[in-house]
Every structure is written in structure tokens, then in C-alpha cells.
């Protein structure tokens, strides 16, 4: 090996190591972007409502630590006493106070009771306005500060009996990371959520079963049975995939009104028991199965039906798993049709998508409940997808594109 080739190799290896790191970095970055909203959702589903309205927002759920005082649980705060952060409890509220600043450093504000401040008679200029100087007593020291504005503070006391004052709203609470699991049970107790969950399972199961059944049959027919106009019919049927749902939305709605299916759960199931894409998928897969298997079965006197179910189907689990997962996701997550076909007043025929949307409107005061609802709606498809991932990814696109 020439030295040139060796150096080239070495350079290549170095470059490829850097390249690999770079690739991991990019992949990781995008993965983070994809996953962060879900992490945020899962964490927020465990928060209390106050925690969800907090600013600055945090990811992890936290609740105030409490201390038992005279039989009640009081929240603990963390306030500095003589410079050291101490755990204190709120003992008094509504104390008339003032916001004091040193004119030299106007950003640092001290909220302190007016009772502990005596006017010195002096004046200063603060942001173009004239303000009075007070002698403010903090602990054992007094400082001369300017009064910026009035406010109201609360009185806090530590276990050792030391006292301090601060604005109650902004006093940092001593918090621990703690999950509020009862959000989930609370969400399910809301009208329609539990029912929506079982309805969605029912609808999805029926639709998936129907689509699998009709697609397997249809796919087999298009792949293996010869009848006139087969290819023409197939192409036309396939072409229907290109028809956007909204063109059909209004007349399909009217058809459902004519059948009197509107506002009943069945309207989400019966028109969707067949699927052109599913038939296409199964047909592509069946075409790939060698035809000799049929011939030997024919000699044994088998009909198309038995050949399909005894030979082809057992060989097609990947495609069936793919199609099943696809249909499941489509049925579980479908939103527009249930929105249109089920009345908002009809709680009992809700599915998760519209129950969730309604929750989003009704529970605006408690976003943690909305998140808990989303977790419930999302955990089943994710679990299914993870389980079926092996079959799913390779097959879905390969057959779809070719």
C-alpha cells in the first residue's frame, strides 16, 4: 500500500469519525425537536393547574413542600434571612408595605412593611420623579432607601422564630418534583371521556377487522383470480385513493342523513369497512408470492377461498400487520368525519378525538387535565406502533412506491 493511500485511508477514517459524530448530532437534534413536545405533554399531565400557568414555564411537575403546623399542611417558602435561604411559613397577610430601592441601583427592590420604615425627610430622583427617602429597618440594621411605590407583603416565620417579609405572590415556594397522578382519574371522570375511550376502541376494532377482511379478499382477487376487466377495475379503484376526502364529505354526510345513520356511532364504522389503499397493499404483497403454491393446492381440490386463507394469509403477516397498524392509526386518529357526523350534544357517541377537542375547550382552566387526556388518547397508538414497528416500516413504503 502506498503512503498516499495510507494517508488517504487515515484521513478518511478521521473524517468518517467526525462525520459520524456530525450525523449523530444532527439526528439527535431533530429527534429532540420531535420528542420534546411529547415529553412536555407527559410531564405536564402530572402537574397541578397552578403549575401549568407558572412563569417561567418548567418541564418537570412540581408541588410546594408542606409542613404540618397545628394540624394543617402549610406550604413552605424559601426566603433569605440575613443572607441565608431559610424555610419559612406564611403567618400574616395584607401588611401595608412599600417597595424600596437604592437610587444608585434601582433594579434591586426591597418590599418591606411601612411600619418598619421611618421617613427621613430627604428626597431623591428616581426615573424622573421625586421620591421620599425612608430609613428602613431590616433585622438589626437600618438603611436609607427611596420609596418607589406602595405594595402589600406577607409576614413569614422560620422554625427558629426568625421573621421576614416578602410579596406573597412572588415568594419562591420550596418545591419538590412531584407527580399528580390523580389527573388521569379526574380526566376519565369527566362526562364522555371514559365512554369516548371505549367507543374509540370499539370503532377502531371494527374498522380494522373490516378493512383487513375486505382488503385481503380484494387483494387476492386482483392478484390471483382472472376475470375480465380486472386490471381496468383495479386501476380505477386505485385511482380513488387520489380523491381527497373533502370532495366526498358533504354528499357522504347527506347519504348518512338519508340512511338515518347520522349521530349514531355506526356512521363512523360502516362506510369505512373497505379501503382502496389496503387492497392495493395486499395485492402487491400477494403478487410477490410464488404461484406454484396455488397449483399444488388446486390439484388437491382446494377452492380460492381455502387457498387464500390457508396459504396466502399465513405467509403475509408482515403486510397484514402493516395494514392493520395503518388502519388502526387512521381510525383511532380520524377527526374530521366524527366532527361532522356526531353532534356536539351527543356525549354518548363521542370518540377520543372529538372528546379531546371538547376537553381542550372546557378545561382551559386546567391545562394539566387536557394533557392527561392527550396522554390517554396517545398512549395506545404509540404502544401499538412500537410493537408493530418491525413489520411496519419496511413494508409500508416499499409496496407503496413501486
Amino acid at each position, binding site marked *: 500500500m502506498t503512503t498516499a493511500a495510507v494517508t488517504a485511508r487515515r484521513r478518511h477514517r478521521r473524517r468518517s469519525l467526525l462525520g*459520524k459524530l456530525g450525523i449523530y448530532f444532527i*439526528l439527535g437534534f*431533530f*429527534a429532540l425537536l*420531535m*420528542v420534546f*413536545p*411529547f415529553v*412536555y405533554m407527559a410531564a405536564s399531565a402530572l402537574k397541578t393547574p397552578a403549575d*401549568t400557568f407558572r412563569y417561567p*414555564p418548567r418541564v418537570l411537575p412540581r408541588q410546594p413542600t408542606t409542613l404540618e403546623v397545628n394540624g394543617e399542611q402549610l406550604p413552605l417558602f424559601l426566603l433569605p434571612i440575613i443572607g441565608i435561604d431559610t424555610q419559612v411559613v406564611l403567618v400574616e397577610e395584607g401588611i401595608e408595605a412599600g417597595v424600596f430601592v437604592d437610587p444608585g441601583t434601582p433594579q434591586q427592590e426591597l418590599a418591606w412593611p411601612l411600619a418598619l420604615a421611618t421617613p427621613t425627610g430627604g428626597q431623591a430622583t428616581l426615573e424622573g420623579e421625586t421620591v421620599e427617602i425612608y430609613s428602613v429597618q431590616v433585622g438589626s440594621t437600618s438603611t436609607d432607601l427611596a420609596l418607589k411605590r406602595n405594595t402589600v407583603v406577607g409576614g413569614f416565620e422560620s422554625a427558629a422564630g426568625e421573621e421576614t417579609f416578602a410579596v406573597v405572590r412572588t415568594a419562591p415556594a420550596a418545591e419538590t418534583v412531584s407527580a399528580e397522578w390523580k389527573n388521569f382519574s379526574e380526566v376519565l371522570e369527566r362526562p364522555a371521556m371514559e365512554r369516548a375511550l371505549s367507543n374509540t*376502541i370499539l370503532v377502531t376494532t371494527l374498522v380494522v377487522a373490516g378493512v383487513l377482511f*375486505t382488503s385481503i*379478499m380484494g387483494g*387476492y382477487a*386482483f392478484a390471483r*383470480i382472472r*376475470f375480465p376487466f*380486472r386490471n381496468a*377495475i383495479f386501476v380505477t379503484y386505485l385511482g380513488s385513493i*387520489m*380523491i381527497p*376526502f*373533502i*370532495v*366526498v*364529505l*358533504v354528499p*357522504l354526510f*347527506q347519504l348518512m342523513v*338519508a340512511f*338515518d345513520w347520522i349521530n*349514531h*356511532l*355506526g356512521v363512523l364504522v360502516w*362506510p369505512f369497512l*373497505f379501503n382502496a389503499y389496503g*387492497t392495493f397493499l395486499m395485492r402487491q404483497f400477494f403478487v410477490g408470492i410464488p404461484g406454484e403454491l396455488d397449483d399444488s393446492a388446486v390439484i388437491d381440490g382446494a*377452492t*380460492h377461498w381455502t387457498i387464500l386463507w390457508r396459504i396466502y394469509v399465513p405467509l403475509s403477516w408482515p403486510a397484514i400487520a402493516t395494514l392493520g397498524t395503518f388502519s388502526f392509526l387512521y381510525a383511532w*386518529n380520524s377527526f374530521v368525519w366524527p366532527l361532522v357526523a356526531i353532534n356536539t350534544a351527543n356525549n*354518548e357517541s363521542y370518540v377520543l*378525538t372529538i372528546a*379531546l*377537542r371538547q376537553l*381542550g375547550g372546557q378545561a382551559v382552566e386546567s391545562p394539566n387535565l*387536557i*394533557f392527561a387526556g392527550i396522554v390517554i388518547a*396517545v398512549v395506545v*397508538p404509540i404502544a401499538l*406502533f*412500537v410493537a408493530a*414497528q418491525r413489520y411496519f416500516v*419496511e413494508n*409500508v*413504503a*416499499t409496496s*407503496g*412506491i*413501486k
Partner: protein
Amino acid sequence: MVADATPVRSTGERPVWLVGLAMWQLLLGVATAVGFGMVASSTGIEIVGTPRPLTMAALGIFSILALLSATWIWRFDHRGRLIAFILNLVLAAVAGFFTLQAVNVFNGLDALSATFGDGLPFLAVIAVGWLLSGWSRGRSGRWERILLTASRGLMIVGAAALLLSVGLIPGLWTFLTRIVLPPAIIYLAITVFSIAALRLLKTSQVTKAFGSTSKQLEVMDGIAFVSPNILGFLAFLAGPLAISLFVSLTDWDGLSEASFIGLRNYIDLFADPFFHRSLLNILYFGLLAIPLSIIPALGLASALNMKLPGMRLFRALYFLPAVAGVVGVALIWKQLYNATIGYINYAILQGTELLNLLPFLDLTAPQPQWLSNPSTAMLSMVIVFVFSTIGFNTVLFVAGLQGVPPSLYEAAELDGAGIWGKFRNITVPVLAPTTVFVTITTTILALQLFSEPFILNAPQLSPNGPANATLTPVIYLYQNAFERFKQGYASAIGWVLFLIIFVITLIYFRTQREEGVLTK
């Protein structure tokens, strides 16, 4: 599939079943002819709301075919068998539908849904049993048998418990009490007879009598197998599509009678400022969202294709937004977009403060009001759409790359090609068909934007967004159809949108074909 048989063609001997079959077809032909006559003279039974020409056409064609098939059957002509098969199939489907409709089985799903919750645990039992049976296949002999029996037992017990817990007995009882009443019993009778005819038509003695070849038999099988799909397609897709075209030429409001107004809806649409706005909006959306959903996906896919460890994890993570469903994703982003306490603005703030650590920078963090400001409202939709779609497209591209032999890449490397060169000269051409597919599907999805604005703007703003910034054609269609009761107008919007999508798809196909890249 029976081998050729010698036909029994003696004209004197007609087996009973043949006579019966011919009689049945004759009956059908006559009955539908009578129906035709009644509808034509518009006396007697009037079927509510059905356009008369259509019913007459259907009845007329059915009648003619039935009579024809009767004569053909009489003459042992195989064509009669085929026609009879098709007619009875259609009849069984239609009569079966009416039977179930009369017994209210379709809407009975409501009742099932009420009790289904109780049955869920048993559904889980069945699932466990099924998993167990799959698991048992790997085991050794005796264990396999035991596990198999156990799993089967579990499934049967689970199924029985499920049925009982969701109220099988009362259900059966209701079903039986309803089905014995007319009109249900009549429909049931028709269904049963037509199914009987179907079974008869497929028996071997019929085959022998008609001398049908196996090819001819296959045709019948084929029709039977595709019938659910085709009938469903006709009833729930093609039918409504045709009706939609017709409705778009009327001024129907969904409540009262419609009157034909020709192309008026389309002309009005042409001048409608709201529709123009929606087209502008969707154009803006598409120009941003479609490239952003595809180009990064291409890059990510080629990165994933390098077959480094951990790729499967990344693939799964990228697919997550597509799996989670649009409602959940939109609601999460709604919280993130909150201008005051949302995480996005907070992240921008933190990022700016980080940048401000650099000595020469002193930026103020922009805190856009994502959903309430007309300038950023549509952009917010773009972001959510890209979020949901990019993972799916990446996975599609990865699959498209599966077929590429790694030797191609190695050869290119030896020739001195860098990452960019490999990408441009190997990855992109190989992925051309995938790219077309992905572009088309993403475009179709993008042009139908509805759910994201619908959910993100609620409850304070209408789905149109601030100052109509997020009004899309589909939202406009929805509002016209279900809020303003202008179903004719809405149908016209649907067709115009369809036309736009169709034309764009055609353009994509054309450009690919010209470059000679698309091989079919």
C-alpha cells in the same frame, strides 16, 4: 375449479333446480319491471327522495338482465349463470342491507357501545390468548401443544365472556323479535333466497350441466371476492362523488328542495373574496410547508441509511408525531404557543440571553404572539404541519433507500466522492420515485389543511384565525356546508379544490416523466 365436464344438454330433461333458478330469475325480472312501471307512472309506492330517472334506470336494467338470464339459464347458456350470479349478489347485498336497516342493526352499535366498556377486559383476555398462541409456536413439542390448547381455551373463554358481558342474550332477543315483523321479514326472505340462488349457482352439478370451464368459474369467484370492495366503493365513494357533482350545480341548503342553477356556484366562487383569501393562504402555507417537510426528511433519511447503531430508535422517534394524531399534537402546540407562558417564547428568551453573553450582541428577544398575530398565525400552522409530517416522510425515504446496494456508495467513496457528492449522484436519483410519491402525498395533505387551524384557534378565535389569516379552502367548505347551510356552494368548493389537487399532481407526474426518471 373443476376440470371440464361433458354438459348434459338434452333438452327434454331439465333438472328441478334449473327450473327453480329460471323461475327465480323470471320472478325477479317481472317484479322489477312492475316496479319500473309504478315509478314511471308515479303512482303507488314512491320511494322517498330518490331522483326518479335513477331509480327507473336501475330497475329497468335489472329487469332486462334478469329476464335475459332466465332465458339463458333455460338454454343452458353459461352467460345466464354469470348474469344470474351477479344479479343475485347485488340483490343479496341490497336486500341484506335493507334487512339490517329495518332491524336497526346499524344504529344498534350505539347500544353495543354502551355495554362495550364492560367487555373490554375480556377483549384483553382474547388478546393475551392470541399472543400466547403466537408464542407457543416456537416451543418444543409437548410444550407447544399445551400452550396451544391453553391459548385456544383462553380465546374461547374470553370470547364467550365478552359476548355475554356486552349483552348477547338481550341482543339476540331484540333481534329475533324485530326480524319477524314486516318489512324486515320480507327483506330477509329476499336475502335468503338470493343467497340460496348464489350457492346453487356455484355447485358442481350446475357446472356440469352448463359445461362451464374453469375460466368461467374463476370469473364468478373473482366477482365474489371483489364485491365487498366494489359495492362499498360504489355506495360510499363513487355514488357520493357523482351526487356531489350534481349538488354543486344546485342551490341546495341541506334542508329544503334544491333547484338547479347551473354553473352559478362556480361563478360566485370565482368572485368570492373569502375564497380568494383562502387560496392565497393555502398557497403561502404550501410554499412553506411542503419543501420544509420534504427536504430535511431527505437529509435525515440518508443519515439514517448509514446503518449506524441506534438507527431504529431514531426512526421510531421520528414517527411519533404521525402516530399521535392531529388533535393531540395540536393541543400540545397550543399550550406551547401561548405568548405569555408558553415554552416556545421562553426558549426564545433563553436563547437570546445566551447569545447576549457574546460581547458584541445585545438583542431583545422577540416574543411573537404566535396564534393571535395575523403575521405569524399561518406560520404557526406551518410549524405544526411540518412537525407532524417530516417524520413520516423520513421513514418513507429510508424505505426507498433500502434497495440501494451499499457497494454503490463504496465505489463512489473510492472515487473520492464526499458526503455531498454521494448524496447528489446516488441518493437523489435512486430516491426519485419515492420523492414523487412523497411530494404528491404531502401536497395533497397540505392543500387539505383543516384540523390544525380548527383546533389551534379555538375557543377564542374562529378557525379563520386573526384577520382571516388561517382561512383555508377546506375550512371555508366546512363553514359553508355545516354552518351556513350552503351545501351546493360547498360542493362546488370541493370540486374546485379537487381540480387544483389533480392539476398539481399531473404537473408533478409530467415533470418526472420528462426527466425520464419515473419508471413504471
